């Protein structure tokens, strides 16, 4: 479980007096009443955008919701998951690492990966430590592959390089073949997942990539080769390929 001390401090720094008072009052509640406070948050807490720091990209109401969820018992957290609208689902998903017993919510986390609502998927995939800490290899690979399949930028996944694995690299190769057959491409940065797991099949993919007309593929191929020869030497260099790419142009 992750400490929520930074959440509380960030709220204190951003909330108005009226907002803070409301929150203090709500936190005296428990059970169903406190769950209803979670639902009512947007009526009392503004959606100030947090510009920097650990919660960059979050809004104040989301932080307050996470703060409230961490005080709730498991049954009420489950009830909120089951009835959540999209903004609530985003806040609940972001709260997962901070819950008292995170591993008991694994199914909620993998459900968020299954979600077709972009913001809900993004809440588990990006800037969230839960997958890195609690997903098994199959669940982790599913998360990364779904990102790639939906052309979302994978560098936003926490633990991406650390949890790279052979099965993921092999599946990525198969996926690239499908895309190439269809006259499409995969974003060039995804090849960062393969250097530690290079084999014959992947080697031929990289050779093919090196001959691509797309300069970003060429850069990716040379980074993979460099990393294979000299592990650790490409750290930071993938950054130039992290921009979103149009996928239908080979």
């Amino acid at each position, binding site marked *: 479980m992750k400490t929520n001390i930074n959440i509380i401090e960030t709220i204190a720094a951003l909330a108005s007096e009226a907002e803070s008072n409301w929150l203090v009052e709500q936190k005296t509640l428990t059970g169903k009443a406190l769950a209803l406070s979670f639902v*009512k948050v947007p*009526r009392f807490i503004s959606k100030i955008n947090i510009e920097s720091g650990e919660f960059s990209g979050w809004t104040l109401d989301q932080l307050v919701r996470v703060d409230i969820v961490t005080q709730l018992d498991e049954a009420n957290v489950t009830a909120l998951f089951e009835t959540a609208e999209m*903004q609530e*689902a985003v806040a609940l998903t972001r709260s997962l690492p901070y819950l008292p017993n995170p591993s008991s919510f694994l199914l909620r986390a993998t459900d968020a990966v299954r979600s077709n*609502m972009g*913001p809900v998927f993004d809440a588990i995939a990006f800037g969230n430590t839960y997958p890195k800490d609690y997903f098994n290899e199959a669940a982790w690979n599913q998360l990364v592959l779904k990102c790639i399949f939906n*052309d*979302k930028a994978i560098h936003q996944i926490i633990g991406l390089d650390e949890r790279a694995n052979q099965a993921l690299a092999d599946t990525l190769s198969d996926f690239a073949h499908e895309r190439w057959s269809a006259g499409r491409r995969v974003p060039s940065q995804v090849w960062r997942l393969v250097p530690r797991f290079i084999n014959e099949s992947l080697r031929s993919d990289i050779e093919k990539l090196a001959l691509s007309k797309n300069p970003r593929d060429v850069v990716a191929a040379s980074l993979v080769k460099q990393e294979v020869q000299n592990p650790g030497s490409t750290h930071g260099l993938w950054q130039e390929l992290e921009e979103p790419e149009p996928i239908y142009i080979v």
Partner: protein
Amino acid sequence: MCQEHKPIGNPSHFEGTEQEKSTAHAVDGTFAQYTQGMKFFDPHVHMTSRTTDDYQALADAGVVALIEPAFWLGQPRTGLSSFKDYFASLVGWERFRSSQFGIKHYCTIGLNSREANHEALAEQVMEILPLFLQKEGVVGVGEIGFDDQTAAEEKYYRAQLELAKEMNLPVQVHTPHRDKKKGTERSMAIALEHGIAPNMVIIDHNNEETVKSVLDQGFYAAFTIYPFTKMGNERMVEIVKQYGPERIMVNSAADWGISDPLAIPKTAALMKIKEVPDEHIRLVTYQNALDAFAQSGQIQESDFINGLEIDQTQKFNGNTILRGGQAPRINKDSLIIR
């Protein structure tokens, strides 16, 4: 719950000139030329039952926001979970689906009159309603009211009026198909008896027989343009000409039946042809609905009038497909599917 499918023709209420009538028929299929620049708000449409083609057509026709009332799905529900998942889909998946077409999706939540007759289940549904009524973007209690006008329907109509009062939410009232006039009067009397201000109540599915009393008592009067069983849009134009635009709104109530999600833009085009003033058209196809349901505190016109604002999460990721109104479009006329 919104219609009985008896394909009978509309009564002959068409009072316009021969010239207007022939123009109206001549523009079939090209009505959009009469609604250029107009924006529409459909306060009653069941998108759950519609396709992405409909969403695309709505967006193209100028519908910028809509309200999806909770209703009877055609198939009776047998357990609380079905209700819970349905309500959750109205604030979740359907809202998201709509946003992909740049249309702001609101909803009203309630126990519909037909299923109110299943009392054991109705009791359980009443328990979970407050949780949903407090959610963002829930702009009222609805659609509730009478169908068969049974004792159970009255019981849950009253209970939900109390919820609306407690939460200060507008009420969207479905009026019955059979014995409509009496059912409408009874719905209004009960709302007043519960101390609900008439301007917080939208009486839906009006016709020529009910409209005067609804307006006279200070309620909002909604008209559903729905083929065969409710209003036709020619009749609608005459009502606007006769009563003026105040507290009148038009909706499609498009659902799983033979209905038309473009009912509002088509009615606006017909009003334009029949020389209803532009401002009156704007009021009955956009502004009045917005004003009525904005009393919930859950509607900000700025959220949709210039296209949907890009969600922070989406901006943060930069490359999702979800930018408001910028979902990939398919060319419906193209033979090639890529």
